[in-house]
């Protein structure tokens, strides 16, 4: 199976290529191609997933790689390859499955768009690239697909390029992620220079395997970090760029300018999770040489970044009014959770949350899309309301997603995955602060989701044209996703931690007695209380009657100043505007001045010199060369005139001359044969 794994990403990419060649009106063909190829990929992924599970069940080696040399420069050769292990297998299934659902959904959502085919071209290109990221066994290949993903994200955010805001957002996303990618590249280069290979696993010689790691550890870098840690941090910077961790998160909310399925697929389920996945991939690098308590500086950094992002984004989400922006900020904060989970609890914890979040956040976005669709493109929650009557199916599924996101106890997947993270945080050896931060984040999450729900679905209709339910092609994916958002928790409960065991390759044990452990009870109780607190608070404030658009928000009436800060996203953009962007502007002006004055002047001088030289040449030409040349031409003209006489246009004349030639030829031949 492993050796044809490359088909999984290849199929959608090929489909994208074909769609790109299609004509604009061939909509059905385009959709069919995209969906068909992706469903094939899904089948292949399942076919890859099952054997992995089986081998794990039989407790055998569960990582198989396929590598080959791309090109060779002297002794150094650059290898590419793909790996099949629990991590990639699960991600494959998740990406292709969610992607497929979203594709189906898009056929309904984009039905009215005239650039339908272009949309599907980009979408399936993205799907292919993302799958490539997942299966990559070499940082280089991963980086290529990574950039491809970034490109498609850019294209899709700017899909409605007529809207200046959209194109601006696209540029912003591209550039901001680029900042992270540069660090990633640096880390990669460094890794290559150290280990001489970019393959992750290559039975013993891969850069993530014992030999290389030992070498990296021996290498000390700045401020007490080992080379391994430093590289890990650089790569983490790249991951932070992609999955919008704190300083680099600014692009993600604006990315909501793209079509909603795009937001669901790229900016909720898959691409932003790619950062988390990357960190999980290079986890050994970060974990290398773990201190007491199984943590390292790198992991600590990851944890703090994650935790702070979680709270920070949740705070902002409270004061947003655009339905999609709220979800965007919640995505950021959830990504923070994942990072923190990775930092404190290891791969399994983070990735489990990633998977569950992928499902319910996709569900939420699609639900939001359905709402927007139903409200004729209205996105401001204050202009909605009472939709639970108009769009019942959307309402049910959406609320399921919302509960899962809040981590409603026991029933919903979000609860279990978030619980895992909280538990890990509680047992963290360095500090307790992240634990409380995350709890606070959970509270905020519950609160703003309730606020949103109340705005959108309860109360009475405050918009213009009355809303309508979306077509089945859009609601069906919602239902399926909702089922998963509920059920998926089962595979990761503390009692039966199948998922974690599978990822870590441990043996699976089932015992209900964990629930009798006081620590766990305490923890679950705490999170439950927090969740209910959040829900209650939200209901208390907004449940009764959501304010109509013109009048200020409830909280705003209570405490206007902080609300203002939150509404303005804590001024990060403005900060960048006055620092980074201002600097760039200044630097650009400097460069411009240099260009105009210095280089321009130099060029002008050179040009003037040449002009002088040219003048000289012209004088020479006119006086000396031309004279003689003209004479020659006259001579030639006269000669030509003479010759032209012979050419009198009479065929027979020519023939005569030919015949004379024959005579001469024969005579010459005979004479020569004589002698």
């Amino acid at each position, binding site marked *: 199976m492993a050796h044809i794994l490359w088909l999984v990403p290849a199929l959608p990419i090929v489909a994208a290529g074909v769609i790109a060649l299609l004509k604009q009106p061939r909509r059905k063909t385009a959709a069919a191609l995209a969906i068909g190829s992706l469903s094939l990929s899904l089948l292949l992924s399942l076919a890859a997933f099952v054997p992995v599970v089986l081998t794990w069940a039989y407790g055998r080696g569960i990582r198989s790689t396929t590598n080959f040399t791309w090109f060779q420069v002297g002794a150094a050769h650059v290898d590419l390859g793909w790996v099949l292990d629990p991590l990639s297998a699960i991600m494959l299934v998740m990406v292709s499955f969610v992607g497929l659902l979203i594709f189906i959904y898009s056929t309904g959502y984009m039905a009215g768009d005239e650039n339908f085919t272009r949309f599907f071209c980009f979408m399936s290109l993205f799907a292919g690239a993302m799958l490539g990221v997942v299966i990559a066994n070499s940082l280089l290949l991963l980086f290529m697909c990574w950039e491809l993903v970034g490109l498609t994200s850019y294209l899709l955010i700017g899909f409605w390029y007529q809207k200046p805001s959209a194109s601006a957002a696209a540029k912003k996303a591209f550039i901001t992620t680029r900042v992270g990618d540069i660090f990633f590249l640096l880390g990669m280069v460094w890794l290559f220079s150290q280990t001489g290979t970019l393959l992750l696993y290559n039975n013993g010689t891969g850069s993530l395997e014992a030999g290389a790691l030992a070498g990296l550890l021996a290498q000390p870098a700045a401020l007490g970090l080992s080379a391994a840690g430093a590289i890990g941090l650089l790569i983490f910077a790249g991951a932070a760029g992609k999955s919008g961790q704190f300083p680099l998160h600014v692009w993600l909310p604006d990315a909501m300018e793209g079509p909603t399925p795009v937001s669901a697929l790229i900016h909720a389920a898959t691409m932003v999770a790619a950062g988390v996945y990357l960190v999980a991939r290079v986890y050994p690098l970060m974990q290398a040489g773990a201190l007491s308590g199984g943590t390292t500086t790198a992991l600590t950094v990851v944890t703090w970044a994650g935790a702070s992002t979680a709270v920070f984004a949740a705070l902002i989400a409270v004061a947003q009014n655009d339905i999609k922006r709220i979800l965007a900020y919640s995505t950021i904060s959830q990504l923070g959770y994942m990072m923190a989970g990775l930092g404190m609890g290891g791969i399994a914890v983070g990735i489990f949350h990633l998977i569950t979040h992928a499902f319910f956040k996709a569900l939420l976005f699609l639900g939001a899309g359905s709402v927007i669709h139903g409200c004729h493109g209205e996105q401001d929650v204050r202009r909605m309301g009472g939709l639970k009557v108009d769009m019942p199916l959307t309402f049910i599924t959406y609320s399921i997603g919302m509960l899962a996101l809040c981590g409603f106890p026991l029933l919903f997947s979000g609860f279990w995955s978030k619980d895992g993270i909280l538990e890990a945080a509680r047992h963290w050896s360095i500090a307790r602060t992240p634990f409380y931060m995350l709890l606070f984040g959970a509270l905020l999450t519950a609160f703003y989701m309730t606020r949103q729900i109340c705005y959108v679905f309860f109360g009475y209709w405050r918009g213009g044209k009355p809303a309508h339910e979306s077509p089945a092609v859009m609601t069906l994916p919602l239902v399926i996703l909702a089922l998963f958002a509920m059920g998926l928790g089962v595979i990761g409960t503390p009692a039966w931690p199948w998922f974690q065991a599978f990822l870590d390759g441990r043996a699976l044990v089932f015992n209900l007695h964990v629930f009798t452990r006081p620590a766990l009870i305490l923890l679950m109780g705490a999170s439950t209380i927090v969740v209910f607190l959040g829900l209650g608070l939200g209901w208390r404030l907004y449940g009764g009657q959501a304010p109509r658009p013109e009048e200020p928000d409830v909280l705003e009436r209570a405490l206007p100043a902080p609300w203002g800060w939150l509404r303005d996203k804590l001024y990060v953009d403005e900060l960048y505007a006055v620092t980074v962007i201002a600097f760039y502007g200044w630097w650009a002006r400097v460069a411009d001045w240099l260009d105009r004055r210095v280089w321009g002047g130099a060029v002008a001088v050179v040009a003037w010199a040449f002009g002088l030289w040219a003048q000289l040449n012209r004088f020479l030409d006119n006086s000396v060369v031309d004279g003689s040349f003209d004479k020659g031409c006259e001579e030639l003209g006269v000669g030509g005139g003479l010759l032209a006489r012979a050419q009198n246009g009479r065929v*027979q004349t020519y023939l*005569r001359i030919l*015949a*004379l030639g*024959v*005579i001469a030829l*024969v*005579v010459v031949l*005979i004479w020569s044969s004589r002698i």
Partner: protein
Amino acid sequence: MSIAFYLIAALTVAGGLAAVLLKNTVHCALALTVAFAGLALFFLQLDAQFAGFAQILVYIGAVAILVVFAILLTRGSETPKDGVFSKNWFVGLVIAAGVFAVLGWAVLQSGHVLPHETAVPVVTVLQIGNALMGRYVLPLEIVALLLTAAMIGAVIVALHEKESAK
């Protein structure tokens, strides 16, 4: 040198002369066919049956007809007032005579090296076919291509004017 040779030679040369000298263009064409027929007979006399029949088929059957058609299409059959020969025909005649003189001289000069009577070669059509399909298959293909090209070219050249006239 047999009687037959002289007869055929006389026929052919007469035909040729007539083809060149006669006033009426159609007569010229007919005389030309006589010359062709004479050449075909020459070929037969030289035991080149196939070539001879090919000569008749192609020249008398096709080329002569073509010429005649061309004459009728160009109304060239009625003789022009100012003579059928071009202005300085004498020069041409002299040159032609010169060519003949040189060629004949060359032939007579090299008379002694030329081979004498040799055994009659037996050539069946089968051999010719094998040669055409074996050793000479490439030239055959090329000639086929050439004929196709010529056909298309002739059609276009002859058709083009009418098309534009419409």
